[in-house]
């Protein structure tokens, strides 16, 4: 995918680089914090998959919405949630985006269009369809995105959600992050047809594309097209992104047995950030200085976020039962 064809400005290209770097930097610090016991709960990183969140969300407006998964830090950051709010939430602090109620798998920031990451595999697909229903009913030109992994493809939610979005022409983009494994179960053992885009086209008559999920421009291009379709009422799309996570399923888990060191190394060579950086430089769209400047800026943002998370207070125990019901309570 050539950036010129996409009509992206240098600024936009650098902002994609910025976002991927920010996700990577934040998560590497979160992983370290997890090792140090500062993240009390589970932590699933997105390392290696940053191009997807960055590419998809670059095609969205702030008032578009995203429904995410257990591996959702990247989606949150790309949708505009601050690294401070994400880090503080993982630290279990009152200043986190869920005020400490959620942790990694329950990041909520509706003001940024992040309608939740999820501890349960599947519902994002259905809820994403539902937001599309809202926008269509209300006559708004907002778009809804549902992220999910290859592990969700065999689940009934995939079948029911894609079908509803298709028959009702909902403004939804389904983004399948096929990183080849669900925890340790290979996608090839979970299905006899790993071609998710083909399945979307045949079984649900849905517009679908399959892209290199490690190529941020490819993801962006497919997303921009899908979002544009959805926005004008032309119905839903599915984007299948082939990618790989280079860290274990979750922090603290072993990463052996189910996949080879060679496979991991192979994919590390396809690192979405390094490759994009090289491309920018090779194409003359950025020089080493510009990159270094972004890297430094990101580093300070990340440092600030971690410091913020560390120094923030824990929530007041009495808040444990607040907000179960709406204000009328």
């Amino acid at each position: 995918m050539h950036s010129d064809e996409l009509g992206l400005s240098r600024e936009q290209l650098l902002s994609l680089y910025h976002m991927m770097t920010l996700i990577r930097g934040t998560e590497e610090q979160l992983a370290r914090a997890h090792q140090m016991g500062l993240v009390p709960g589970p932590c699933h990183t997105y390392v290696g998959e940053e191009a997807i969140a960055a590419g998809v969300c670059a095609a969205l407006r702030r008032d578009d919405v995203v429904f995410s998964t257990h591996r959702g830090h990247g989606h949150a950051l790309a949708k505009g949630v601050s690294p401070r709010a994400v880090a503080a939430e993982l630290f279990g602090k009152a200043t986190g985006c869920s005020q400490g109620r959620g942790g990694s798998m329950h990041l909520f920031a509706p003001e940024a269009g992040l309608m939740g990451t999820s501890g349960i595999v599947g519902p994002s697909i259905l809820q994403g369809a539902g937001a599309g229903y809202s926008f269509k009913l209300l006559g708004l030109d907002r778009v809804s995105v549902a992220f999910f992994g290859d592990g969700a493809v065999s689940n009934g939610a995939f079948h029911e959600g894609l079908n509803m979005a298709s028959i009702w022409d909902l403004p939804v983009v389904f983004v399948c992050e096929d990183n080849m494994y669900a925890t340790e179960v290979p996608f090839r053992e979970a299905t006899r047809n790993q071609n998710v885009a083909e399945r979307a086209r045949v079984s649900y008559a849905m517009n679908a594309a399959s892209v290199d999920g490690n190529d941020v421009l490819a993801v962006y291009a497919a997303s921009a097209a899908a979002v544009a379709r959805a926005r004008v009422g032309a119905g839903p799309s599915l984007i299948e992104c082939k990618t790989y996570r280079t860290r274990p399923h979750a922090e603290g888990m072993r990463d052996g047995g189910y996949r080879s060191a060679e496979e991991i190394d192979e994919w590390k060579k396809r690192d979405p950030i390094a490759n994009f950086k090289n491309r920018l430089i090779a194409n003359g769209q950025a020089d080493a200085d510009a990159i270094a400047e972004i890297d430094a800026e990101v580093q300070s943002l990340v440092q600030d976020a971690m410091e913020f998370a560390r120094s923030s207070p824990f929530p007041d125990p009495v808040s444990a039962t607040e907000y179960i019901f709406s204000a009328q309570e």
Partner: protein
Amino acid sequence: MREITYTEAAREALTEQMALDPSIFVVGEGIGERGGNFNTTLGLYEKYGPMRLRDTPIVERGFVGMCTGAAMTGTRPVVDFMIVDFILDSMGELLNQISKVQYMSSGRIKMPLVLRGCIGIGGAAATHHSGSYYPIFVHIPGIRVALPSTPFDAKGLMKTALTGDDPVLFLEHKLLLNKRGPVPEEDYRIPFGQAAVVRAGSDATVVALTVMAPKALAVCEELADEGFDIEVIDPRTVAPLDIDTILESVHKTGRLLIIDETFGPCGIGAEISALVMENGFDDLDAPIARLNGLHTPTPYSPTLENAVIPDQAAITEAIRDLLAE
């Protein structure tokens, strides 16, 4: 006051609110042109069209999950399950998503979602079409549960459901659907958590849920001829539960029986019994009693079906036993 049926009353609330609030839409199987298997949406399709009366494929989990996302983003979905047994395929969405979104989002996302369906035993509907299940939703935090027993309550509770911001299970007993009763034409709401004392009395308190409320009332009217003066309370909602009204009554009568068609173990009667134990022990002149349907899957044959429901005779006997204690 004019009299209309229970179904008409709930439908009147729905159509009035749909006229006022363009964000309300209904989903379900056959709730479009057909008007609903139980006429819950009869005539609405013509008024509001297919986007607001959305016939669905048979995907209970799917449309509940979809409506969750819709409720999170500015609309007010009404899920019409037809029969509440079909809700079970969507329990993950209900117990893990709908009931938790307001909390997890620290109140920034509301969940104005109404889920309705018929409950109860009757008509030889057998075991896949006779469930009630409401105690499950009382156990789980984050969901409101309304159990209207009269047309008046059906309209007033549906109005409250459709104007609040919490998820509400609105459960209609299938044997009540065609019962007629007085219903005001004007707009009114019945607050959740406000029991109705459907008969005042001083000798004993009977709490009766949904279809058992009119049944218990009839028995108590008969017993009045024998000089027994029984107070009958219909909680109308079980989440929240108006325990104060029950406690006040027990304070007066000293005796309590809870009648519920559905299962006893970990049911509403158990909860009320435990709450009165904790908050009104000294008022009790006799042990609190429960009368429930038998703890068994619902059988088909009329002779078996009748055997599992508390009937007039069983209610009468339970009240006599309570008075005799």
